[in-house]
């Protein structure tokens, strides 16, 4: 059953989600960027704005009149909502005989996200695999993630840095959502992805979609994507190409600033450190996002396994596109293009992979 929803009904959807007990977050273009912010009504999402993205460049520009979800994505993915950039894991209190360690549990929050792109849904599914489906379940991630509700928005136009079609994650949301919207000129096509989504949709005022709506919604913007990545046999290529000269080339441009890993929706490295209060009676174990680009990342006493930027860039790319598949069964890259846009040096992963492939010792694979 394909149904359409009037643009004015978006407000009803938001109100409904609040009534169901969700805190609703939507993509709010502001402050020269775009991020998921708490919203209570649709009008808080500025209309008629698009983003202009290129390697090392992000601008919000005038878009198409009446278009609500014109901005593809901003620097912020959903990652910080489930995997907090900084959080306390343990509180350790000095006691008369020694000390006592107490686990700190995050308060569970029911959050609904409106306007989630297919790439970011794929990233959430990947982070679920990392934090929940391994030998150790991360209780903190689990508490934040448990009740999340996703309203996806299919991408009808790509940013210039997008390459989700190459990674098989988009541009149309195929799984992981409760509801999915495709924005048309004068409405939305609504798809249901779960029983919870079905229950919400049942309370919305929807109309049957006609043939022209369905045709309009079926337009796939994959063909418009400027960037692509050839993923054929990529793990083997990168494992074999540890000495490819391109690593030196990219290391000369990479600032090792960690931006790419911070904006990446799947990167999961974090530090675990103990911060003691100044009186010395309480110490907290804090987890913070870390990056394989930081100098300390692979340092042990008397040895740093990745001293040079060349080694750190190679580690990041090889992990993301190769060893990630061995570890978690799929590529760590969802093709969102954030690492390209937010790299101050404009380094483009798609270009780096192509160059490594072209310069491969065994010839192009």
């Amino acid at each position: 059953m394909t149904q359409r929803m009037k643009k004015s009904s978006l407000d009803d959807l938001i109100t409904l989600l609040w009534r169901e007990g969700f805190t609703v977050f939507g993509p709010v273009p502001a402050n020269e960027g775009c991020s998921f912010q708490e919203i209570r009504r649709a009008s808080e999402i500025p209309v008629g704005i698009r983003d202009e993205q290129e390697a090392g460049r992000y601008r919000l520009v005038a878009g198409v009149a009446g278009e609500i979800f014109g901005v593809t994505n901003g620097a912020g993915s959903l990652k910080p909502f489930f995997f907090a950039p900084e959080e306390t894991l343990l509180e350790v209190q000095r006691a008369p005989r020694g000390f006592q360690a107490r686990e700190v549990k995050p308060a569970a929050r029911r959050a609904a996200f409106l306007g989630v792109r297919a790439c970011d849904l794929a990233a959430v599914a990947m982070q679920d695999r990392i934090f929940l489906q391994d030998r150790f379940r991360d209780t903190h991630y689990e508490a934040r993630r448990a009740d999340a509700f996703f309203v996806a928005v299919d991408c009808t136009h790509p940013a210039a840095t997008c390459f989700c079609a190459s990674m098989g994650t988009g541009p149309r949301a195929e799984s992981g959502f409760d509801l999915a919207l495709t924005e048309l000129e004068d409405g939305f096509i609504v798809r249901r992805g779960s029983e919870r989504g079905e229950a919400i949709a049942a309370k919305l005022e929807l109309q049957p979609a006609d043939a022209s709506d369905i045709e309009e919604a079926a337009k796939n913007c994959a063909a418009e994507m400027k960037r692509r990545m050839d993923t054929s046999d990529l793990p083997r290529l990168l494992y074999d190409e540890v000495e490819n000269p391109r690593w030196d080339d990219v290391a000369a441009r990479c600032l090792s600033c960690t931006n790419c890993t911070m904006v990446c929706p799947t990167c999961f490295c974090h530090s675990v450190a103990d911060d003691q209060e100044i009186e010395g009676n309480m110490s907290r174990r804090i987890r913070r996002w870390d990056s394989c680009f930081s100098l300390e990342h692979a340092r042990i006493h008397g040895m740093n396994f990745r001293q040079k930027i060349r080694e750190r860039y190679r580690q990041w790319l090889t992990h993301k596109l190769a060893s990630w598949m061995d570890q978690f069964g799929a590529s760590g890259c969802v093709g969102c293009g954030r690492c390209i846009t937010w790299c101050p040096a404009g380094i483009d992963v798609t270009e780096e992979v192509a160059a490594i492939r072209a310069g491969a010792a065994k010839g192009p694979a």
Partner: protein
Amino acid sequence: MTPYAMHTARITARRTETEGIYTFTLRFVDPDVGRAYRFTAGQFNMLYAFGVGEVPISIVSDPAEPAMLEHTIRVAGRVTTVMGGWKVGDVVGIRGPYGKGWPVEKARGRDMVIVTGGLGCAPVVGLINYIFRRRAEYGDLHILHGVKTPNDLLYRDRFDQWRRAPRTKVYLTADQPDKSWRYRIGVVTELFDELTTPPASMVMMCGPEVMMRYAARSLLSKGIAAEDIYVSLERRMECAVGLCGHCQHREHFVCKDGPVFSYTDVKELFGHSL
């Protein structure tokens, strides 16, 4: 138990191995935790000094007596410096055990070659102790250890003790010897010239990766199967449960897939920093 729960343990004994290296015996404060605690040879715990931090330390005591946990700590960095000052009666934090240990079951009944290099290698000391407590269950034991200078030879007494044990040979070498050095001169890999062991032997190694890479080559050329060679790797670890990413070694997380690996799983990676 969640991955982050930490228990407390009391130091019941402290022994100085040499200047800057101490072995501590720990007993869980909560007897129920102590009774439930089990580990295998080659696994490690995360030890915590209040307010300072946590480090991965391998267990050197015997898995048959899990209530008598022993850890040897070498004072090296910020956290271990504090740990070096631990006294009997002090309360410390502990979580674990983590990782995969030595394949001691696979090695049962076979001749063993144990190779170490550099400064005291706790994972191997625990392994040797394990074998000595079950001496009849294992074949001949060859212990090869290489140091840079004679001063780096820790546990000199232990090597002498092991040397006197039946069916045990100890091979020592120093790269830069002094007049007091009574053993071989050269790098550890040269010791393999002296080694006479049947190809069916099992090999377990710990030390600098370059050393292990060359050692593996020598052993392979002696007919030892790649599947019978095991190595213990060292990487930065902060969570110990395969989530923080620091110990990543290409497709492996050293904390949960290791620290002991089959040589066949990591042979392509020696010398690389992926």
